[in-house]
């Protein structure tokens, strides 16, 4: 264990210098913790966990009465806190180390608070956060929430954030200004999601009040999933306001027609075709059907078998005398809903064979969507249909819209066809790797895959920063070089690996590595500068 050395204190002006180091375990794995001016890092041979002071919300230590000496670091970006358990021979020594660590961290945090308000945006953003808490409708709060959720949800973005913002290459505002559309992506993802957005459960308010929150993605989803709603919207908005329209939607019988809750309550029958409301009137035959013209693999084509059973024998026609609506399609509609939803998700993937799988698409594509977003709408709907005992009050509506939310500007940069092709090829290679991993008996190759994928994503982020902020190129250059070195190392590791599977992976990874190398080799080229990114 190293104490706080005078050398370390003296060198504290430099962010890279080590201030304190001690042994600690994280998630039951032994490792070493290093406290530097930029953050606390735990690492062992295989994993690294870093908590930069820029995102450190608070640090806590366990009381002396506790059998274990533990340091808990919470982040402003959300996610579970990092809990480090000091590993020393005796509890006393452990608490001694913990005390030193606490003093060191507190000193750095205080110094950062004193020195940064004028030069860095972090303190001002902290104040802004405070203000935002006080005034919830304020734009900054929403933006910050979005950023936090983005960082928490996207490990790659978080890595890029660390690499660029925490390392001080670009400021927080610059980082996010280049990713405005990414914020939108999070709200209205270009890549399809498994989530049934139209069925997001409402928050329960007082009495029979239900609070629905709508955003661009949910609206787009509902309009796509329910053509009747789209038609009704086209017909009624305007003159009806957008808010009023959506409140009507959530109050309508149509809204509940394919919800399991209504089926279970036995209400779906009355909410089905029989229900005459604003939306049911716009319903057309075949709205619930999938597109039958799409080609299917011969191995799953049941229609041929169905046709085959009736050689020279006319099919049994449906009974034309059966009264319309006599069928009870309530439970069937729930089934159709899931098939339609899955068709939508898979159909989007299948639009382009070269389009990578869901995860890869979400991770790699950025700044491509120029679709203007909608405002967030929070709808308080008085929905007495779901109440067991009606209150007798008329169905009412109170609409709480947050004030003037920031309207995101569309992205100014898009990947050029050349870089997009590179990305797609890499994604296709990842997919090959996935297929390979699926084969019976395939060895787990996750480390190789994730390593290559992360490097590729980071290369894209760095290159984007390179072209977005020409003034930052001196700071970016060493990072690009470092990445290049890492890639070379990865390539060598794969190539020289003695195991058969690793060698096979090397072959599969070859196109990815070639693409990364090509991108890096061209980074100084003027031609690359103009061709890989195109302004829109």
């Amino acid at each position: 264990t190293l104490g706080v050395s005078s050398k370390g204190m003296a060198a504290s002006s430099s962010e890279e210098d080590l201030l304190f180091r001690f042994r600690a375990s994280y998630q039951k794995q032994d490792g070493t913790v290093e406290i530097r001016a930029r953050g606390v890092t735990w690492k062992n041979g295989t994993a690294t966990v870093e908590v930069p002071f820029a995102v450190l919300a608070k640090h806590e230590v366990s009381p002396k009465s506790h059998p274990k000496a533990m340091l808990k670091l919470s982040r402003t970006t959300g996610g579970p806190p990092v809990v480090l358990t000091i590993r020393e021979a005796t509890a006393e020594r452990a608490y001694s180390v913990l005390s030193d660590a606490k003093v060191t961290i507190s000193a750095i945090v205080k110094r950062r608070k004193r020195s940064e308000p004028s030069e860095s945006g972090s303190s001002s953003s902290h104040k802004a956060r405070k203000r935002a808490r006080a005034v919830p409708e304020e734009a900054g709060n929403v933006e910050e929430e979005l950023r936090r959720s983005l960082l928490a949800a996207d490990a790659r973005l978080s890595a890029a954030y660390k690499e660029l913002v925490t390392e001080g290459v670009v400021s927080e505002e610059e980082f996010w200004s280049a990713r405005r559309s990414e914020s939108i992506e999070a709200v209205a993802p270009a890549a399809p999601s498994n989530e049934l957005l139209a069925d997001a459960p409402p928050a329960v308010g007082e009495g029979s009040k239900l609070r629905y929150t709508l955003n661009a993605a949910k609206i787009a989803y509902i309009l796509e999933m329910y053509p009747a709603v789209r038609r009704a919207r086209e017909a009624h908005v305007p003159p009806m306001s957008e808010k009023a329209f959506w409140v009507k939607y959530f109050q309508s019988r149509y809204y509940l027609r394919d919800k399991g809750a209504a089926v279970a309550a036995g209400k779906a029958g009355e909410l089905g075709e029989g229900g005459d409301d604003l939306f049911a009137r716009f319903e057309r035959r075949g709205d619930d059907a999938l597109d039958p013209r799409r080609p299917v693999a011969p191995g799953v084509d049941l229609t041929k078998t169905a046709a085959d059973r009736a050689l020279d024998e006319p099919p049994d026609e449906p009974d034309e005398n059966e009264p319309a609506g006599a069928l009870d399609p309530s439970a069937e509609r729930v089934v159709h809903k899931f098939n339609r939803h899955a068709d939508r998700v898979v159909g989007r993937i299948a639009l382009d064979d070269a389009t990578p799988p869901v995860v890869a698409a979400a991770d790699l594509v950025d700044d491509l969507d120029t679709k203007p977003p909608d405002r967030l709408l929070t709808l308080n709907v008085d929905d007495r249909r779901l109440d067991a005992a009606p209150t007798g009050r008329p169905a009412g509506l109170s609409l709480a819209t947050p004030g003037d939310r920031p309207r995101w500007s569309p992205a100014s940069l898009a990947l050029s066809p050349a870089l997009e092709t590179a990305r797609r090829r890499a994604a296709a290679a990842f997919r090959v790797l996935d297929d390979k991993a699926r084969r019976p008996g395939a060895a787990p190759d996750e480390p190789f895959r994730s390593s290559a994928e992360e490097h590729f994503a980071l290369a894209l982020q760095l290159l984007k920063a390179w072209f977005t902020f020409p003034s930052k190129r001196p700071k970016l250059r060493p990072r690009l070089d470092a990445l290049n070195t890492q890639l070379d190392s990865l390539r060598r590791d794969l190539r020289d690996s003695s195991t058969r599977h690793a060698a096979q992976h090397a072959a599969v990874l070859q196109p990815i590595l070639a693409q990364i190398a090509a991108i890096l080799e061209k980074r100084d080229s003027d031609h690359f500068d103009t061709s890989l990114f195109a302004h829109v």
Partner: protein
Amino acid sequence: MEESAPPPLCYATGRVALTPGTECLAGMRFQLDELDVFFPYDYLYPEQFSYMCELKKVLDAKQGHGLLEMPTGTGKTVCLLSLIIAYQHEHPAMGKLIYCTRTVPEMEKCLAELKFIRQKRGEMLAAEGRSTKDEPFLALCLSSRKNMCVHERVVSEADREHVDVECRKMTASWVRARARQDSGVELCGFFEEWDRAGTDAVMPAGVYDIEDMKRLGREHGWCPYFMARHAIAHANVVVYNYQYMLDPKVAGMVSRELEAESVVVFDEGHNIDNICIEAYSVELDKGKLNRAQRCASRLGRRVDELRAHDAERVQAEYERLVKGLEDAGAFAGRAALTDAQLGASPVLERDVLDEAVPGNVRRAEHFLRLVKVVIQHLKKRLEAPKVEVETPAAFLLDLEQKTALDSKPLQYFYARLNSLMRTVEVADLDDYAALGMVADFATRVATYQDGFAVVLDPFFRGPSGIPEAKLQLSCLDASLAIKPVFERFASVIITSGTLSPLDLYPKLLQFTPVVQVSLQMSIFRPCILPLVVTKGADQLAMSTRFESRDDASVVRNYGALLVDLAAHVPDGLVVFFTSYQYMEQTVAKWDETGVLRRLLAHKLLFIETKDVVETTLALENFRRACDCGRGAVFLSIARGKVAEGIDFDRHYGRCVVNIGVPYQYTQSHVLRTRLDYLLTRFQIREADFLTFDAMRQTAQCVGRVIRSKTDYGIVILADARFARNDKRSKLPAWVLQFLQSAHLNLSTDASLGIVRTFLRQMAQPVDDADLKQMLLDTATVASLVKGRRSDAGHFMDLAPT
């Protein structure tokens, strides 16, 4: 340094497409007694060799039939085809191989195997300097017009359901006769070209699947459907649907000319008794009877019009009927293919066909009046206030008493209607389907006195869930449909992966097999993990028995099981429910309680529906999701379309969950009548039959996920009743051999631990050395053949089990 991967072991997997590196195979050739067997793979499984030996016993017996069970995914089809083709070459008098399949994909898989066998045979003979040109070999499939039509307008414009009608409108003999005088009448160019070629329209030797047939048709300008109908008489191998052999109406048209020396194979024949019964049963309801009545009136008007301007034709028909039905139904030349209307007469005996048609149905107007009276009577019967089950004799007696009709003419109804429709030149048969069903009902009820029951259920709840009156002439005896096949053809082989218990089939189908054998599965690793999950994590029992299936705890525990499995099992997960209704209700409850939202966090969800097109698209999407994502979940029905014909091999099905024991709906009056019949006639107890039926459906679902020996899968039997010995003992031996006693009463969380361990083990690379130890090469097979002569059967000892 990159290591070069060793060449893959080439062995049969149950399908050609999955076999790695098939292009590098040399194949295998060995002598099995007098047969020179060409096997297209380098290695043989021990059970495949046993299967061939047993199969040969059946063929050697000449007039003998066989019942062979071999585990799913062990290459049944390829050894069956290899051996029978070898037999055909050795014994040219054998006749055809008529291979009956349940689905079109199975038909295509069979033909793909056959192509592969022929290709390897050619290569092996070429290596010896011989050619296969001197042994012309034709194998083809036959499917419906809908699947085989190449006429651009019909395929692109017409509704798929109306391809038949459009085809008849252009190919019927009277349409073609009219076209000779009126150039405005549209004819099918493909049919005309095929007809013009006449005897020159010979298909070149080869193996043709549906697409090959269509390609050939387009190249030569010949209609693939009629080409196939004509060519099956000359083919060595014919592959088609069960119905074409078992349904007398279709079989009378398609299979009538096939030689009696042929060998008939029913692949995946575990449900053959149900198919036989379906082929012979007729269902009528009020809607159908109303339509039939309208059709009869329409037909009457057409007869009047015809008589007004072409009385001779009506009179000619009358003359033919006087000579007997056989003459009335006789077609000449190509008209036999094009002018068959409602299909061949279903059931009539030779003496009935030969005698003169009764006077009161000879004239069209008399016949139609009679039909209307029968329809009226049936409609009245539908108004009965309670369920009635009676024998055909009782039904006819009631008919005679209430309508004062003689029941004998009823058995001529179907053939008489057929003749009339040809006389008045009806091409749009779809409009007359209901009338055809009434005629079929009348003919059958008047012909069969035993093995049938008339069941009248005024409150029948069909798929719609709305009660409606239904009159069903229900066939109770599956042997009636298959009896002509057993009697006519030299050898009939029923084979499947799930025929256990074998001794029930001879009883149900009333035949005595010369070989009845169930083969074990040789294994090199425990690739199936069957688990009986009887309770949820809360220790409450899970079961779909009627009394408890709607309990909140049962629905919740099934949901939790599914979500947990989706979280742990990579790739595809297939779930089989006991019925559509139960699945839909459960899905709605899961949607309500958020189970499906949690499930969607792990995998996409696809659900089978009653709509074939939607289910097909859902299956296609399911496979795409498995190909490019984190896998998917497919909810299906144990007796549904998917369970019977779709494979979930490799990553498409890593786990199959059977939610509940798929018993039939025991309150069904038709089923109860059949159970009574089975007890009194065959001494098969009700519980035995129901359990047998449920477990064969379960086994069929289980077999969906294991399609080769390197494949692996988890089988969750999620119902407390599966833990009982009387249930699980009826599962096939190849499932039971993996079922450990410790895995018979598990909770959800306990089963997940076992699942995780299994998946870790199975994720390890397949050890080629272990696999090879199990496979038989040419030398081993030669020694086994030698040993077989002295001591048949000992070769199975070599297989590690």
